[in-house]
C-alpha cells in the first residue's frame, strides 16, 4: 500500500460498470517525510476521504476488486484508509 494526499476528483459519466456511483479521487503519492513525489493516481474512494487528507492507497488489482466486490472489474487503486498519524522509528 502507498501513502498519499487527496488532491482532487474526477467525474466520469460514461465509464465501466465498476466505477458507476463511485467517487474517484486524485491522490498525490507521498514519501515517508510527507513530501509529494509528483505522481498522482486516480483511486476509488470507499472510506469517504476529504480534500487534503492523508490516505492509504491500495494499488493492487486483486485487492481492489475484492474491496469493491467486483471480480471482473478493471480497477487497480482504492483509497482504503484515512491516516491519522505516521510514526517513523529512528
Amino acid at each position, binding site marked *: 500500500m502507498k501513502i498519499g494526499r487527496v488532491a*482532487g476528483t474526477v467525474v*466520469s459519466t460514461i465509464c465501466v460498470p*465498476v466505477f458507476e456511483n463511485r467517487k474517484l479521487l*486524485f491522490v498525490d503519492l507521498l514519501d515517508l517525510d510527507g513530501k509529494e513525489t509528483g505522481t498522482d493516481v486516480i483511486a476509488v474512494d470507499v472510506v469517504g476521504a476529504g480534500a487534503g487528507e492523508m490516505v492509504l492507497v491500495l494499488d493492487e*488489482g486483486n485487492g481492489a476488486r475484492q474491496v469493491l466486490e467486483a471480480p471482473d472489474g*478493471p480497477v487497480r487503486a482504492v483509497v482504503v484508509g484515512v491516516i491519522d498519524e505516521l510514526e517513523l522509528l529512528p
Partner: protein
Amino acid sequence: MMELGRVTGTVVATTIYEGLEGVRLLIVQPLDRKLQPRGRPVVAADGVAMAAPDDLVAVVASREASLALPPPFGPVDHAIVGIVDAVEDWTR
C-alpha cells in the same frame, strides 16, 4: 496505476493476436491533474467503446486493463475505463 489521459490518436492493426479483434486501439498521452503531460504516450484499448480523439479519459494500466474488454484477458496493458467530464484540482 490508474491515471488521467488525453486521446491523441488512433491505431489500426489488421494482423492481431486473438482476443484483440474488434477492439478499438487509441493513443493516449498520460496527464497529471493539472492536465500537464506526464511520460510517453501509450496505446490503450477502449474499454468503454465510446472514447474519441481529444477526449479526457481515465486509464488503467497493467493486468487490470484486460478486464475492461468484453472477453476478459485479452493481451493489453492499458485500457480506457472512463470518459472524464470534469477534473477538480483541490490543491490550487
